[in-house]
């Protein structure tokens, strides 16, 4: 299926060098990847190999040292600082290992928050947040605070949040890193379903069980990754 689809993300020679004191750390060296729409791409590699760095660059959370990353027609490395929040809102959804929900807000409000920044009217965003959470089986948990939810439930809330603005790309950094195998399976199932509906997802994982379910697996070592 992916072959017929257009390429939604094209990474070329993307690199990132940190300078730790005087010693340069090449966290990412000339990554070249093309991702098609609807792909569920797994990225695997040892700890410290640059997986999170790759996601941070594609997610515009950090500046690249070189190369390009064109997402949905926009070269992310050329977007001026001021317009980055807008790109994040409109094109990218994040799912983190530690869920990263806002502890003072309920499940519903956490999902809503993503749409608040994009100026969706209150009624509409409430409605959409509710629908998303219900689709992920959290219809009974709308008003629960993160501390009142299990890890799996929190991760589903954060997936709903990532989906809120209909992003071109979802970036998930070890989304199953902290949950048991049953919850892991349900998260994979959600991702697969989203992917068949045309949602592009990149998943960083250490878990072969997760990788096995993905449409493609790429390996990264020492900051080097190629298609």
């Amino acid at each position: 299926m992916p072959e017929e689809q257009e390429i939604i993300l094209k990474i070329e020679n993307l690199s990132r060098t940190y300078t730790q004191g005087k010693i340069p750390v090449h966290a990412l060296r000339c990554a070249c990847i093309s991702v098609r729409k609807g792909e569920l791409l797994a990225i695997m590699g040892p700890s410290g190999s640059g997986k999170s760095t790759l996601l941070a660059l594609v997610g515009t959370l950090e500046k690249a040292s070189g190369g390009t990353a064109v997402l949905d027609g926009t070269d992310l490395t050329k977007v001026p600082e001021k317009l980055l929040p807008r790109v994040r809102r409109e094109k990218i959804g994040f799912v983190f290992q530690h869920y990263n929900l806002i502890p003072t807000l309920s499940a519903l409000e956490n999902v809503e928050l993503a749409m608040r920044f994009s100026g969706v009217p209150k009624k509409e965003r409430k409605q959409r947040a509710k629908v998303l959470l219900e689709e992920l089986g959290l219809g009974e948990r709308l008003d629960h605070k993160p501390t009142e939810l299990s890890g799996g439930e929190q991760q589903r809330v954060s997936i709903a949040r990532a989906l809120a603005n209909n992003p071109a790309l979802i970036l998930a950094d070890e989304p199953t890193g902290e949950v048991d195998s049953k919850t892991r399976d349900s998260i994979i199932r959600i991702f697969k379903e989203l992917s068949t509906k045309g949602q592009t997802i990149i998943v960083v994982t250490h878990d072969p069980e997760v990788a096995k379910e993905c449409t493609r697996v790429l390996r990264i070592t020492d900051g080097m990754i190629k298609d």
Partner: protein
Amino acid sequence: MLDLIIRNITNRKVRSALTICGIALGIFAVIVMGAMSENFHQTFERSMSVTSDKIRVFAESGVFGGGLTDNKVSDVLRVAGVKDAYGLLMTTFDEDKMGMTGKQILGVPPEKSSVALYPVELKAGRYLNPGDSYHVVVGNNIKREYELQVGSKFEIHDKYFTVVGILDYTGSIFDNAVIIPLKTAQDLYNVGDSVSYIFAVPDERVDAEMLSKRIELSVKGTSTLSPGELEVQARQSFMIFSVITISSGLLAAIIGGLCVMNTMLMSVAERTREFGILKAMGAETRDILLLTLGEASCMGLFGGVLGILVGVGSVFIMNTWLAKTRIVLFLITPRLLVIAMLFALLIGALSGLYPAYRASKMSPMEALKHA
């Protein structure tokens, strides 16, 4: 956004409450000190307006030097441009030896009493008339303190006086004045024909400043204080008083502001990761600033409202308590309330500025890695 701000404040109840109390305490000080200054200011302005038309003439050697007697009055009257002149004997009320409460006995020639008191109006009775001796016109505070009416007896220096007139409340020094005939006052205090001042009323269309100089030159042994000079003198001492009271209030409020800054820095540091999340979700720098500045300003607002409520309450209680002793010390004015409120907001916002800047400048990835 407001709901998020409120939620952040209520989520850290004790800390927010302490911060708000810090601001409230500062604003409380601003209100109390400001009310004192406002009261002083009002008395000052009103006293100025009731005495501003007259030139004070006193002995060259000063008010307490003596040497100014009744016969100088006719000299002053002879100066061209003087419409009216009268001597006035001023002493503090016997009961009040130290002069602390500002009660004063004013001996004025009976026939000039209405001129001397102008523009203060009578609330009841009449001014002094020629031929009056042991008769008295009292200011409004004196009337209230001694529960006097026209016809009541009033004791001064072991002599009984009959109250013939009661003055309207003015908010000026006249509220604490006891006005008796000059001759009676001179006898009562055994001062012969001395007077404390001579007041000269300038003709209309005569420049008071010029006339003041002319009197000084033509009447030997006198110096004068024109309304303008008096105002300048009084305004200086008033300024010093205001600066002292207001700056002590402001100091307290600034301490309240540091309190907010500390809380905000703490809460921003604690929420580093949260700001990272918000940024990853596409929050604009503007949103982050709004959240943090809004939180600080809200605490300023709550602290301000609380401080004003407590301040106004205490001023009210103190004034009621002091009413018995007839001293009015505090005056709450609308402008004082507005200033206090604006100041509270300003302090909140200003002390939120740096923490907000810190929060907005954080790199999202760094913030997300923060534990």
